C-alpha cells in the first residue's frame, strides 16, 4: 500500500479513536486519583486494602452484600493479605446459617474462611424494603459495573453537597454531584472520624473513600496484580520472539530479493 494511503489510514484511525474515546468516556468529569493499581505495573497498597476492608465491614456491609467473595479471599495473595489467623478470626466473628442437620433443622454456627461474605439481608426484597425502595447493589463487582470504575465510586463517596437552590428532593433522597440526575437514595456514608482505623491512620472522609474504593477494586478484580505481572512477561516474550522471527524473515526473503 502506498504511503499516501497509509497516511489516510492513520488519520482515519486517529479521528475514530478520538470520537469513540469521547463516546465511551463518561459525560461528567469525575474526581481522579493517582491509583496505585492503575498503569501497566500497578499493584494494590496492602495497608489501604486492609483499611478498606475495615471501612466495608464497619460501614458499607450493613446494607451492601458482597456475595461473590469468601472470607478466605481476604488472605489470598494479591489481596489484603490478612494472615491465616486474622482471616479465621474475621470469619469467626460472623454467624452463618448451615444445615439441614441430621434432624432436618437449619442451625447457626461460627463462620469459617470458606464461607461467603454474610449477606446483611435475608433476600433482595428485604434489602429493598429496608432502604426506601432502592436496592443497595451487591459490591462484589461494583467497581467494574460502573463507567469510570474506581474514580466513579470515589467521586460518589466524595460528591455529597448541599442541594442547589430550587432543586427539589423527596424525603430520603440526597443530592450528589456525580450521580446521574444528582439524586441518590444513599445518605452520605462517610464522614471524618466515623471509624477508628486499627493501624492508627487518620480517618478522614477522603482517606476512607480512597481505601474502600481500593478494596472494592480488588474485590471486583482479585487477580489484577497477577494479570499485570503475567502481562508484562507475555509482552516482553512476544517482542523478543517477534524480533527473532523478523530477522529470520529478512534472511529467508533475501533469497527472493537477491534473485532479481
Amino acid at each position, binding site marked *: 500500500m502506498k504511503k499516501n*494511503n497509509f497516511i489516510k489510514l492513520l488519520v482515519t484511525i486517529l479521528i475514530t479513536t478520538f470520537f469513540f474515546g469521547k463516546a465511551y468516556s463518561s459525560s461528567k468529569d469525575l474526581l481522579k486519583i493517582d491509583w496505585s493499581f492503575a498503569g501497566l505495573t500497578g499493584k494494590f497498597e496492602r495497608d489501604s486494602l486492609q483499611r478498606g476492608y475495615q471501612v466495608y465491614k464497619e460501614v458499607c456491609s450493613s446494607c451492601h452484600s458482597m456475595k461473590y467473595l469468601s472470607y478466605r479471599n481476604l488472605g489470598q495473595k494479591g489481596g489484603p493479605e490478612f494472615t491465616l489467623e486474622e482471616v479465621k478470626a474475621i470469619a469467626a466473628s460472623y454467624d452463618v446459617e448451615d444445615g439441614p442437620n441430621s434432624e432436618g433443622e437449619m442451625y447457626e454456627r461460627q463462620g469459617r474462611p470458606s464461607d461467603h461474605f454474610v449477606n446483611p439481608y435475608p433476600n433482595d426484597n428485604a434489602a429493598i424494603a429496608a432502604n426506601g425502595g432502592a436496592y443497595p447493589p451487591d459490591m462484589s463487582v461494583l467497581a*467494574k459495573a460502573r463507567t469510570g470504575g474506581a474514580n466513579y465510586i470515589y467521586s460518589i463517596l466524595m460528591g455529597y453537597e448541599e442541594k442547589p437552590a430550587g432543586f427539589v428532593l423527596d424525603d430520603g433522597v440526597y443530592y450528589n454531584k456525580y450521580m446521574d440526575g444528582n439524586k441518590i437514595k444513599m445518605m452520605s456514608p462517610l464522614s471524618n472520624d466515623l471509624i477508628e482505623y486499627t493501624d492508627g491512620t487518620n480517618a478522614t472522609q477522603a482517606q476512607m473513600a480512597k481505601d474502600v474504593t481500593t478494596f472494592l477494586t480488588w474485590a471486583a478484580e482479585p487477580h489484577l496484580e497477577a494479570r499485570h505481572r503475567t502481562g508484562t512477561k507475555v509482552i516482553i516474550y512476544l517482542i523478543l520472539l*517477534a524480533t527473532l522471527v523478523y530477522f529470520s524473515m529478512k534472511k529467508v526473503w533475501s533469497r527472493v530479493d537477491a534473485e532479481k
Partner: protein
Amino acid sequence: MSEHEYVPKSKAGKWFNDRLPLLSLGAHLSDYPTPKNLNYWWTFGGILTFCLITQIVTGIVLAMHYVAHADLAFESVEKIMRDVNYGWLIRYIHSNGASMFFLAVYIHIFRSLFFGSFKSPRELIWIIGMLIYILMMAAAFMGYVLPWGQMSFWGATVITNLFSAIPLVGESVVTWLWGGYSVDNPTLTRFFSLHYLIPFLILGLVVLHIWALHIPGNNNPIGIDIKKPSKDTVPFHPYITVKDIFALLMFMIIFAGFVFFSPNVLGHADNYIPANPLVTPAHIVPEWYLLPFYAILRSVPDKLGGVVLMFGALFVLIILPWLDTSKVRSATFRPMYRQFFWIFVVDVLALGYLGAMPAEGIYLFLARITTIYYFLHFIVVLPALGFLEKTDPLPASISEPVLTGGLSAVPTRSDKIINEKK
C-alpha cells in the same frame, strides 16, 4: 493450483498416502505458489485462523465451568473469574478475542475491497467469506448474552424483537426464538447451544474458503493474473509462513495489551450488573463491531424498514462481485475508486460512531445521511465507476514494468527492484 506429483519417501508414507493423500495435501499447502508481492494486509487470513482457534479452545474450557441457567450464569462467570485457575485469563482472552477477531475480519474485508480480491474468479471465496462474517456476528451476539448481565439481557431483547417486524408471523417467530413470552432461561440455554455450534460451522466454511482460494490462488496488490508457479511466485512455506508468523506476533502484542492491561475497555460496564427484566439500561448499545448495522437499523423510522435495510446492508455485500463492474481489480490502478474507497471507509466508521450515540437530533440526521451513502456506494457508485473511470495501465507481470512503458502509478516492491536493476 499446481499439479502435484508428490511421492512420499518412506514406504509407510507411500502406503498411507495411497489410501488417504494427506501427505499430498501437506505438500500442496507447503509448495502452494503465492504471489511474492503480497503486503502485510494479506497476513490477516492467517491471523483470523489463529483467532478462530483461540476462540474455540478458550471457549471449550469456559464451557466446562459455565452454567447455562438464568439464575446461575452470572455467578458461574464470576466463579470462573475468581476461583478457576487462570479463569480470568481464559475468559478475558475469549471476550477480548471476539473483538480482536472482528478487528482482523474488518481489515481482511477492507483489504479485499481495496485490492478487488472479490472479483472474478474469486466470487465464491468472497461469498463464503461473507457467510463466515454473518455467522461470526451471530456467534458474537449470542456469546455476549451468556454472562446474563444487563447488556446481555437487553441486547438479546432488542435484537430478537427485530424479528417481530416480519409481517403476519413476526410475533410467533419471536415467541419461538425466545422459547417463551420473554427473554428468559429457555432463550439462554438455546443461545448457549448455538454459540457452541456456530464456531464449528465457521471452521467448516473456513476450510471451504481456503479450498476455493487455492483454485485460482491469491490475488495480489497489483491485482493482475499471474502465472503459477513462476518468477512472480514464491512457495507458501517458508516465505509466507514466516511473514504470517511475524504479523501474527505483532497482532498478538496488541491482543495481549487488551487482555492484560485493559480487558474491559471494549465491553460495557452495565454487563457486570446481573440481568434484571424490570430495569432497562439508559442506553442499550451492542458491541462495537455491530454498531454500523445498529446505526442503519435505527436510522429508519419504521421497524420493518429498519430491519430490511440492515439485512440489505449485508445483502449488497454478498452480491458485491456483480455490483462492481470494473474489470481492473486493484485500486492501485483505479484513481477514482481509490477516492471512493476511502470515503466509504469513513462512512462505515461514521456509522459505527453514530450507532453508539443516542438516535436523536443531529446524530439521527447524520446516521440517515451515512446510511444513504452506504447504499449509494454499492448501488450507484460501484456499478457506474466501471463505465466512467479511466484506469491506469496495468503491468504485464509482477516482475515487469507496464507494457506501455511508464511505471505503474504505485511503485510496488518488485518495481523498485527493477528500477534498481536499471
